[in-house]
């Protein structure tokens, strides 16, 4: 029985990491403002969301099975407070941190209309911390550590994310297609002096002896 739990924990952990890799790469691609990876923009957005929700479910299973596994020595508090576990505290602590970040990012995303765009975006930036922490956790804490197939998967995932980041920071990314003015840039006026004659006229309020009237004033 405990073996089944252990395999479930390992399996869900590995697949979550792969799903999160897809999530991060699609998240990076969504900033391009044009279809990427052969998907129209709305599909990039939907797959990003669906993969993250699937990953969340798998992480929940991952954590639940570990809680029930006597060999893992995991207690409920370890889900929130990192580096306090009885077994492999450092690696598990990284997992805790990654879990907390995933929960924060997913919950704020589900509630983004209520929380407002600024809060949602601010928390979302932590995805760039969450993914590497989850990756290191995966390398360090599973008993697959050192086994060739897991290392190969982990390296492939890291390469994909690194490639996406290099693309993002490179010249060909062109957020929003580069067709347009950045916002909040004043126009570069050609050599036209805009006159403000108002500043030079005196502003007396003139009292005119003969009233200018029409339409029945006294």
């Amino acid at each position, binding site marked *: 029985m405990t073996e089944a739990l252990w395999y479930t924990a390992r399996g869900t952990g590995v697949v979550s990491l792969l799903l999160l890799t897809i999530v991060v790469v699609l998240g990076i691609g969504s900033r391009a403002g044009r279809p990427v990876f052969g998907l*129209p923009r709305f599909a990039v957005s939907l797959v990003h969301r669906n993969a993250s929700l699937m990953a969340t479910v798998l992480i929940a299973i991952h954590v639940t099975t570990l809680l029930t596994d006597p060999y893992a020595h995991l207690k409920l508090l370890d889900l929130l407070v990192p580096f306090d576990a009885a077994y492999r505290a450092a690696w598990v602590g990284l997992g805790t941190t990654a879990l907390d970040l995933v929960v924060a990012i997913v919950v704020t995303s589900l509630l983004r209309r209520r929380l407002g765009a600024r809060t949602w975006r601010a928390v979302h930036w932590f995805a760039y911390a969450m993914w590497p922490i989850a990756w290191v956790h995966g390398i360090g804490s599973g008993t697959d550590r050192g086994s060739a197939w897991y290392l190969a998967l982990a390296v492939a995932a890291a390469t994909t994310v690194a490639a996406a980041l290099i693309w993002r920071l490179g010249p060909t990314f062109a957020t*929003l297609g580069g067709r347009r003015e950045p916002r909040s840039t004043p126009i570069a006026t050609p050599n036209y002096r805009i006159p403000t004659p108002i500043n030079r006229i005196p502003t007396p309020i003139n009292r005119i002896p003969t009233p200018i009237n029409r339409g029945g004033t006294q």
Partner: protein
Amino acid sequence: MNLHINWTACDGRGLCAELLPEILAEDDWGYPLARSGAGADVPVPPELRQHARRAVDRCPRLALRLG
């Protein structure tokens, strides 16, 4: 039912034009352009209501609202 575009938030990401091609096109700079000529409040026919809801949900800048 109208689709309201909050122009101060819209960044021309274009997901709405993909999801509602019948009523939205893209202008020269990628911003949503109502085919009907409307500016900020675009009328949505009842059969497209579900698609409009999806567009509102997917907009990465939360710039859309149905009302």
